[in-house]
C-alpha cells in the first residue's frame, strides 16, 4: 500500500515535470517588456523609439545640452507615420527622429541608405585640409602601421599622422619610429578627421607615451531600460607599454571636430599626460560605445549604450576641449601653410628655448 502511494506520488511529480512547458507557455504573457513589434510603419516606428528609449545612454545629457526630450520626440514624429507611407518616407522620418540626438554613433541602416546626423562635425569649421596634410607628409613618409604615417620635418620635429584606429598596432614599427625620431625636439601627432576605429588600438598607442600609470577616465554601461539605469563606474587606467620604446619628449596633439569615437578616447587619454599638449578645435565626441539591434522590417539600428567619462567624471560625448584653441587661417591655407602644424612647430621650438 505504501509503495503504491510512493509510486503515485512519483508519477505525479513526473506529470508536473511534463507540465512545465505548458506553464512556461502561459508565462509568455508576462513578456510585455519583450513583446515583438509588428512589421508595419507604425510598428517599426514604435520599435525604433522603444529600442532607443530602453538602450540609448545619453538621454539626460542630450536633454541638458541640446534640449532633447525623447517623449516629445515621439509626439513630434508619431503624427508623420501613416500605414500607407512608403518605405523611403518611413526611413526619412525615422532618420529625422534619431537625428535629434546628434550622435555620430546613432545610425539606421536600410537597404538603400545609412541614416545619420553629422551636424556635430559639419556645423563647425573643418580646420583641416587633407591636401595640406599630404603636402607636409611629402612622398617620402614612412608607414608605421595601417593609416599611420610619419616623417621628419626640417626643424628636427617628428610629424606623425594617424588617420584611423581601425588597423592593428605594430610594436616593431613604433619602436623603429621612436628610434628614427629619437633626436627630435618633439613630436606632432595629427589626428584631425580621424573618425575612430578600435578603442584597443588607441589605448595601445597611448601607452607608448607614458612612463607611469595614469587614471584617464571612467566607463559604465546601461544595465536596465530606465534612462538612468547604469552599472557602477569603472576606472580606466593607462598602463605604460613597458615592453617597448616609449616617447617622453614633448608631444603636440592636433585635433578638430572630425576626431570621433576611438579618436575621442585617444585624445581623452593623451590629455592626461604631462608631456602632451592638445592644440586645435574640440573633438567631435562619440563617447558612447555602440550596440546594435533590428527593427521588424530588418533595418539595423546602432546606438550608444556604454558612456565614457574623463578623469573628472565628465561626459566626453559632446567632445573634448583642447588645451590651446586654434583655427585654421584662410590666408595660410591659400599660401599652402597649415596653421595647426606651424603653430605646433613653434610651440615645440619655444619649449626648447624656454623649457
Amino acid at each position, binding site marked *: 500500500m505504501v509503495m503504491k502511494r510512493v509510486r503515485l506520488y*512519483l508519477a505525479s511529480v513526473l506529470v508536473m515535470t511534463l507540465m512545465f512547458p505548458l506553464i512556461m507557455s502561459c508565462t509568455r504573457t508576462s513578456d510585455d517588456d*519583450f513583446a*515583438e513589434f509588428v512589421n508595419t510603419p507604425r510598428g517599426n516606428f514604435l520599435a525604433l523609439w522603444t529600442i532607443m528609449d530602453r538602450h540609448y545612454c545619453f538621454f539626460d545629457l542630450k536633454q541638458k545640452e541640446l534640449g532633447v526630450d525623447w517623449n516629445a520626440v515621439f509626439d513630434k514624429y508619431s503624427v508623420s507615420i501613416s500605414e500607407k507611407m512608403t518605405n523611403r518616407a518611413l526611413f526619412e522620418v525615422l532618420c529625422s527622429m534619431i537625428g535629434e540626438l546628434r550622435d555620430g554613433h546613432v545610425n539606421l541602416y536600410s537597404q538603400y541608405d545609412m541614416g545619420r546626423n553629422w551636424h556635430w562635425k559639419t556645423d563647425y569649421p573643418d580646420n583641416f585640409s587633407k591636401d595640406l596634410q599630404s603636402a607636409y607628409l611629402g612622398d617620402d613618409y614612412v608607414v608605421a602601421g595601417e593609416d599611420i604615417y610619419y616623417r621628419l620635418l626640417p626643424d628636427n620635429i617628428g610629424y606623425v599622422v594617424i588617420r584611423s584606429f581601425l588597423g592593428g598596432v605594430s610594436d616593431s614599427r613604433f619602436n623603429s619610429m621612436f628610434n628614427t625620431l629619437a633626436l627630435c625636439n618633439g613630436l606632432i601627432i595629427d589626428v584631425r578627421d580621424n573618425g575612430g576605429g578600435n578603442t584597443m588600438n588607441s589605448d595601445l598607442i597611448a601607452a607608448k607615451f607614458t612612463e607611469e600609470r595614469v587614471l584617464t577616465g571612467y566607463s559604465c554601461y546601461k*544595465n*536596465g531600460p530606465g534612462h538612468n539605469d547604469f552599472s557602477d563606474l569603472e576606472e580606466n587606467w593607462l598602463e605604460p607599454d613597458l615592453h617597448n620604446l616609449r616617447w617622453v619628449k614633448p608631444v603636440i596633439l592636433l585635433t578638430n571636430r572630425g576626431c570621433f569615437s576611438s579618436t575621442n578616447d585617444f585624445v581623452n587619454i593623451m590629455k592626461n599626460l604631462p608631456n602632451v599638449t592638445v592644440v586645435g578645435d574640440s573633438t567631435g565626441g562619440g563617447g558612447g560605445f555602440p550596440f*546594435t*539591434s*533590428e527593427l521588424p522590417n530588418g533595418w539595423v539600428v546602432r546606438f550608444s549604450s556604454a558612456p565614457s567619462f574623463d578623469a573628472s567624471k565628465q561626459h566626453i560625448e559632446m567632445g573634448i576641449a583642447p588645451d590651446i584653441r586654434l583655427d585654421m587661417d584662410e590666408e595660410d591655407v591659400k599660401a599652402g601653410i597649415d596653421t595647426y602644424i606651424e603653430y605646433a612647430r613653434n610651440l615645440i621650438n619655444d619649449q626648447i628655448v624656454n623649457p
Partner: protein
Amino acid sequence: MIQPAAGQSSAWELPEYKERINAFSAGIGKTWERETYISELSYSGLVGSLQWDGWKGAKPDGVMGYGRVHSSVLFGYLKNQLGGGRMLYASVNYYYSRIWSVVHTKCSDLLLGPSAMFKLCGLYDTTDSNNTATGEGYLSMGLCADYICRFNIRNYPLAVQLNMYSPLLGIAPSPNYDQPYWFVYKYNQYTSLIHFAWFGNCFALNGQMNVICPLRGGSIRLGCSIDYLGNKLGGHLTRLMDTCFTIGYVHRLAKKN
C-alpha cells in the same frame, strides 16, 4: 526484411549490473531563437545534432540506481523573417543522472531521479556590430525521467522510450543587458556574468522520444528531440528552442565480470 536478433523477445531492457548501453544518433531539424541582447527579432533556421545516450546498470541492491548520460552537440544556421539577418548557433549539452526504477512491469519501466546538467549555447550574428555574439549557459541540478514501453507488432518487438530532463536550480552565465564583452574582459567582470537560476527565472527542458527497433547484433533508433532554454537573466530575453528528427543505433556492451 528487417528481423530481430534470434531469440530476442524485447526491443529494449534495462541494463544489468556492469552492463552498458550506448546509443548514438544524428539528427536534423529546426531551431528558433530570440535573444534581445543581439536583436529584437526572432530568428529561425536549420539545426543539425549529434547525440549520445548512455545507460549503466544498477547494482543488484539497487541503492545506487542506474547511471544515465545524455550529451548532444547542435549546430544551427538561422535567418530572421525577412531573410536579411543571419546567425550561427552552436550548443553543447551534457546531462548526468542517477535514476531509480519506480514502476517496472513486463511492458514498461518508469525511472526517475536527480540530474546534473551542463548546457552552453553560443549565437553569432553575422551583422557587423559590437554586440555581434552572445553566450548563454546553465549549470544546474534537476530531474530526469525515463519511460520505456515495450510492445510487439506481430512478432516484431519494438520499444518506445521517452526521456526528459528539467533543471530546477543552478547558475546560468549570461551577459547583462547592454554589457559589452570587452567590458567583461577589461574590468575582469566575469562574476557579473553569473546569475542564480531556478525554474522560475530560467527554464530549460530536454526531451526525447525514440522508437527502438532491434536488428541483428544491435538496434536502430528513430526519434525526435526537443531542447529549450528560456530566461530573462541580465534584463534581456533569451529563448532558444531546437527540435530534431534523429536516427541512430543502440549498442549493448557485454558485461564485464
